[in-house]
């Protein structure tokens, strides 16, 4: 297959970037999208050009490192699929594909397709945990957790922290990411003691990091490779209201 990639090239955070077109005449339908970039980079290296920088590690859709905007869609056209798991068979011979970094006020571009997502870590640091110092835990079966609750917690805990929700949101909001953590921990009996503080602290951190407000556009859930639902945002709002009333 022959593909044309138009890729955002930006040498550093302070320099302006621009789209640059590259032809890849030898794309194979069974390649992953990142393997396509690998092949391009091998060529650029030999030609004396600067290879394209992009984040990646597991290449199995689980570490959350990868992520680019492909033809305007975060992680590309296939639903519930990270960039590393997207395969070239989704495209057609002769396609021109735009490849850009996550764009959001809270995610600065570092180089080319790489952005700074450390704001998401700081949201978790603000309270996205259950305080259980090592060694202090009771026997695991001392608190049974009904299966439906365990399943809800699990579904939300599958968030990989990729930031696609932020990139897809017209407001640059990290509401889906934050709500997944609230819904994961606040639904479990183990998370109950810190329930109110947790939601208040996470929301405060989210605002402090410069993420935008949520206006329920739902773009985040479309982009989310793990299918975190809008319900989680409703859960966060409910928890927030409950905690704010309790605080007064």
């Amino acid at each position, binding site marked *: 297959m022959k593909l044309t990639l138009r890729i955002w090239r930006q040498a550093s955070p302070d320099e302006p970037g621009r789209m640059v077109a590259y032809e890849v005449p030898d794309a*194979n339908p*069974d390649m*992953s999208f990142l*393997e396509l970039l*690998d*092949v391009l980079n*091998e060529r650029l*290296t*030999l030609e004396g050009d*600067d*290879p394209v*920088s992009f*984040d990646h*590690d*597991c*290449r*199995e859709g*689980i*570490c*959350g*490192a990868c992520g680019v905007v492909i033809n305007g869609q975060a992680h590309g056209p*296939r639903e*519930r*699929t990270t960039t590393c*798991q*997207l*395969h070239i*068979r989704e495209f057609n011979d002769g396609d021109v594909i735009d490849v850009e970094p996550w764009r959001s006020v809270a995610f600065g571009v*570092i*180089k080319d397709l790489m952005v*700074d*997502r*450390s704001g*998401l*870590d700081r949201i*978790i*640091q*603000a309270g*996205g*945990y*259950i*305080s*259980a110092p*090592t*060694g202090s*835990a*009771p*026997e*695991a079966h001392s608190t*049974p957790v009904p*299966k439906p609750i*365990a*399943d809800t*917690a*699990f579904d939300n*805990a*599958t968030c*990989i922290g990729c930031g696609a929700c932020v990139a897809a949101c017209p407001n640059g909001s990290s509401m889906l990411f934050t709500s997944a953590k609230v819904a*994961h921990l606040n639904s479990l009996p*183990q998370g109950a003691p810190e329930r109110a503080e947790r939601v208040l602290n996470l929301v405060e951190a989210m605002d402090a990091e410069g993420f935008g407000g949520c206006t329920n556009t739902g773009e985040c859930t479309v982009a989310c490779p793990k299918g975190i639902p809008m319900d989680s945002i409703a859960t966060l709002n409910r928890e927030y209201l409950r905690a704010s009333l309790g605080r007064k």
Partner: protein
Amino acid sequence: MTFYKIGDDIADTTAPDVPIEQRWDKRRFDAKLVNPANRRRHSVIVVGTGLAGGAAGATLAEQGYRVIQFCYQDSPRRAHSIAAQGGINAAKNYRNDGDSVYRLFYDTVKGGDFRARESNVYRLAQTSTQIIDQCVAQGVPFAREYGGLLDTRSFGGVQVARTFYARGQTGQQLLIGAYQALSRQIDAGNVEMHARTEMLDLIVIDGRARGIVARDLITGQVSTYLADAVVLATGGYGNVFYLSTNAKNSNASAIWRAHRRGAYFANPCYTQIHPTCIPRSGDYQGKLTLMSESLRNDGRIWVPKNPGDTRSPDQIPEAERDYYLERIYPGFGNLVPRDIASRAAKNQCDLGRGVGPGGLGVYLDFADAIRRMGEDKVREKYGNLFEMYDRITGEDPYKVPMRIYPAVHYTMGGLWVDYDLQSTIPGCFVVGEANFSDHGANRLGASALMQGLADGYFVLPPMLGNYIASTKLEKVDASHPAVVDTVNEATGRLTRLLSIDGERTVDSFHRELGEIMWEECGMARSEDGLRKALGRLPELREEFWRSVKVPGTGDQLNQSLERANRVSDFLELGELMCVDALHREESCGGHFRVESQTPDGEARRDDDRFAYAGAWEFGGTGTGDQPILHKEPLNFDYVHLAQRNYA
């Protein structure tokens, strides 16, 4: 020609000489304690934020030490542990199916083909139960039964259901638990976290590990970090093979640099080739994807009976299929240990019965399971794995059998450590996959997560405290000559890599290295093949340093430079792996020497000559330099040496 020298034997002198059930209690009781009020004055460097490093950093910080922590990813949450799928073992015996600490110990020693140290394995089994408690308290959403209690399943090589899991994403859930505990300590100011920062070298002063040299991957700035002790939790080195199931950037640099500074490297040739991975599809392939071993609980492995049968699987009638694992190993069937399942798949493909492109694949079929449990139940158990398979291959495993083939997955070898998890460099501790300790020559499924968390949460912290409490350390600063020298060496290497400006890319060298290792030091190893590899590898290394092309500069983000630095270390490590494989003239676990097999093709150990861990001392890389072998004799006082039998 021999490729190595023999040095003195080595021994673990830290496990107390009391009955095995009492050793860990006794060791903790004998250990010196650091007064809680003084812990703030002591700093510890932890390199790595996977299960082992994340758990260690969080726990040490909770105890009051000042922790300085590193990972190369942009966030500690992305460590390679995140990718573990199947589960984590623990001897909880919730099923009342005859499990116990002793049985987990026994299974692990046997599964490791009698090449692990009994004391360490026993402690691992003892600690396992606490891990589950700890993780549940953190909010790890393990799979549960309708009654609200934890569910478990079986993994290869065992006959009890002791594997706890969170759908097919157990590693992710456990790591998020450790990451959240670590995040709490970062927020409290007890952990200074350096993400996107790669360790380039270990700083050793007066024989003790006192710090590291690391490069900020964004700015290229090379800096030194000094502390009272250094913990390496940098994972395994399977990427020597280029294609493996490890994350793309997993590397051996931290442990290899420590090895060059004096840490012995034990059993480097013990690699685990996992039987159920998606076969490769082309030359562009950058990595391989694992399909969790848990699939072998319900999937049946088969090949067509007739070599070269190209009919589609649904056209091949039952009578013309060979469910070879069930046939050869009726006792364990599809759940034989990994090394055995992988070799059996290779044997079938060597007989021409392989399926898919190049005949390098076997079927893993769920038709029976779907008939028996219904598609919904199968979806609930394995849904995410089936989806992943579909995304990668474009085939729907609910309809056609999966095609699988073995791939490099895990490295049992690693830096030698004693019972305290300390390497041969005092003050340098090694945890998780980076050490060699608990799995002998073959790791059982779901035991790496257990080991990483046991090391990080429960074993390392008291032993590190003991080291700090019993060692008088001089104050050092960055002007110390040893620090200056180490920095100069590290930056010198980077400058050299950038200045070669040759004609071959880093990846092309890495691929060639991987092909040599897979051919000669992979699933079957022979004296001839290993000698051939040992002839070629020094040449390849020399070519690399003469003709690699690394674009860009060192004072900017430069992913080619990162890779070049890692590959330069893999080239040296690959050689040591081949030397180790050549010297070990027996087959054991994942190490299969074609010269040492039983009449029916199973691995034949040679306990008289090889019942030891082989710990290698670095001998240089110049012509004529040779690594030095130190043997740690292994005693089996509890689990008696026997040929493994899974029939």
